[in-house]
């Protein structure tokens, strides 16, 4: 019997061995930078969960910087410079955004900021698009996750999510290839490995826009080398997106801002393919946040910004567009 028990225990150790080895490698490499705290998050190896990184940087710098103005929303926030925004607000700005952020994700962050002892919220600029208003609950997956102190989930669950993300073949294979051969291959590693070096400002979390340098260098070729730009798109209006669930979420965001006396602005950016938000949604947003606090650059009035020269890629407009948005938003008094 003792021999059989020994064999059983041995097998119980052998079966998880490969997973344990993978776990040790993951803990040592910490590619997503979520296991340990770092002094510099901004030149990462891999594409990170921007929500987590934003929050960690905010926490690291809040005592020294006393942030009171928050640039939130989708990755289109990259076009907005904190210094430029501060000219309108006079506040201490910080870019707190997420990958493909939705209203539900933003509400979670607002609730976390609201819970922070002594945290003032004087200005909020929400950079949104149609998809933003479709997501009224915190989105699943590590690219949308937030730290346990924000979500209330356990640390083990949080880390387990990242370990699972690490183990998916879609991530693990390119990552291992990159770690072994130290060569970047755009076809298989784009969106997984960071090949742009430093991508954010260490204090304000502003984006480092390496695309501007590429445009300056390549000129028109910058867009000709991409498949998406076309000279003309037929304008298309989406069906209304903002319904009961969205309204509930937005009202909660508004409620937090009102409690802080915050100046809230909503910026809907242009789209390269002339798809625009439904006017009913804009009316709803203005009812919730105020007539003068919402601008919609996806509409026909701002059609000049549909030109592909105003875009870095099909998902992100350039900083000149952001500057125009801010000028119009803050001109409305």
């Amino acid at each position, binding site marked *: *019997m003792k021999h*059989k*028990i020994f*064999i*059983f225990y041995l097998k*119980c150790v052998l*079966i*998880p061995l*490969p*997973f344990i080895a993978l776990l040790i490698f993951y803990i040592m490499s910490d590619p997503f930078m979520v296991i340990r705290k770092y002094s510099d998050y901004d030149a990462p190896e891999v594409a990170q969960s921007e929500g987590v990184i934003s929050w960690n940087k905010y926490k690291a710098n809040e005592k020294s910087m006393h942030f009171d103005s928050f640039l939130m929303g989708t990755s289109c926030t990259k076009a907005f410079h904190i210094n430029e925004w501060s000219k309108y607000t006079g506040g201490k700005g910080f870019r707190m955004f997420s990958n493909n952020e939705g209203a539900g994700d933003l509400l979670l962050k607002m609730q976390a900021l609201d819970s922070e002892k002594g945290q003032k919220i004087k200005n909020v600029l929400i950079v949104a698009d149609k998809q933003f208003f*479709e997501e009224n*609950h*915190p*989105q*699943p*997956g590590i690219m949308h996750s937030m730290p346990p102190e924000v979500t209330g*989930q356990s640390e*083990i*669950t949080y880390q*387990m*999510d990242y370990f*699972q993300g690490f*183990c*998916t073949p879609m991530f693990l294979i390119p990552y291992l290839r990159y770690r072994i051969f130290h060569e970047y291959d755009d076809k298989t590693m784009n969106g997984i490995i960071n090949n742009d070096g430093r991508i954010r400002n260490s204090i304000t979390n502003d984006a480092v826009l390496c695309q501007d340098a590429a445009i300056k260098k390549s000129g028109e070729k910058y867009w000709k080398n991409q498949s998406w730009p076309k000279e003309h798109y037929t304008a298309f209006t989406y*069906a209304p997106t903002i*319904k*009961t*669930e969205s309204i*509930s979420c937005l009202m909660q965001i508004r409620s937090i801002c009102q409690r802080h006396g915050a100046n809230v602005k909503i910026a809907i950016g242009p789209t390269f393919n002339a798809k625009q938000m439904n006017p009913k949604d804009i009316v709803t947003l203005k009812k919730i946040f105020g007539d003068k606090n919402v601008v919609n650059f996806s509409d026909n009035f701002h059609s000049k910004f549909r030109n592909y020269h105003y875009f870095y890629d099909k998902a992100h407009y350039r900083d000149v567009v952001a500057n125009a948005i801010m000028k119009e938003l803050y001109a409305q008094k």
Partner: protein
Amino acid sequence: MEFLSIPFAVFILVVFALYYARANRRWQHFLLFAASLVFIGYYHIVYLAYAIGIALFTFEAGKLLHKNIESKWRAWIFTTSIVILVGIWLTARYASPLFPLGISFYTFQALSYLIEINWEEEPEDDLMDFMLYMLLFMKFLSGPIERAYDMLPQLKEKHSFDYDNVTAGLKLVAWGAFMKLVIADRIAPSMNMVLDDVHLATSAQMLQATLLYPIQLYADFAGYTNMALGLGAMFGFRLSPNFDRPFISLSTGELWRRWHQSLSFWCRDYIFTPVSAEVRRWKKWGIYFALLVTFVTIGVWHGAGWTFALYGLFQGLVIIYETATKTGHERFRAKVGDRIYRPLMMIRTYLLFAVSLLFFRVSNVSDVLYVYQHLLNFNINDGKELRLGLNDNQWIAFGIAVVVMFVMEFINSHKDIIKWTTTKKAYIRWTLYFVLVMLIFFYGNFGVENFIYIQF
């Protein structure tokens, strides 16, 4: 201490190692008893107090009842004991701020023990064995509801290390973890999103949640049961199965012979049979009455609100209808043939169960009626509302896992899969083990904390 938690993993390792360190019955029972006390007390000391109190009361009441089985006091002792147990249970459910975990399960065990003694079975003499029957940690939280005559004889045996039993148990635990983590917990946040506040959901979302909730519930509860049975097997115990492929049922009556079997068979034996015997002169109306009483009891067993009573009533009414129209169904079956009849009835039974489960899941009756009103009143805008917080990969993984679960159950109904793996070559077995563990690791949702039936 949840089954799927690090404290429990450490706990079970220690208990397992000590259990087989000495193949001595007294030592093993003492260890299991101590482990059960730690397991129950880990949640709250009050839960432990309740459990020990009820167990001790039942033990003494059983002895007293047996001693007076021929006397005039028999009925009084029996009735008083039952009333006290039911009273404690109802008080805990309706009036206590702290609802002791597992109380519904071990109270019904206690009731069945006393009823059997009243039916002139022998009581248990050994207090330790009886306490283990009542409190054994593997089945404490959510059953199965064990019968004394099934479990007590097993406690009389010494349990030596049996490699085949232990490994079979471990495989069952892993399979239960797969069902819980990859299926039930993957879909749980989506179900919560809709069913926690139905007024914020669209009709399409309500319909989707209604159709998927039975799968979540099944994977959660059957997953737990598999883990409990697997753990039992690892320690040499044969616990009662709770499910037998309920979704192949051709009627609601059949579904309840396949779903939560330990509860439904308990209610059949201790409520339906005695009640129908008492009212047999009412003929078919007596049967209907007994069915209503049985299923309302099943509903109320689950929870304190009207929704649970209505859940039970729904089941009872459907089964009464099926009983009353049995001849018509048989004629229809003969007319259309099994090829049409069987899938049609399976879908019908599933749909009826799904809409009845809204009473089980949604917080109040008016919200259930709201869902009923809006269930078929939808148009889908762009399909994104149907994602319910999951991305495409997660839906695909969930879908495949559900198919795998049903296919495995189908195969297992014809051949014991666990036994089958032992006949295969080592490299096949180990590949299967690795694949299962990998699927749990990579696709399991570790974020959902509790099993659903822990609340009962």
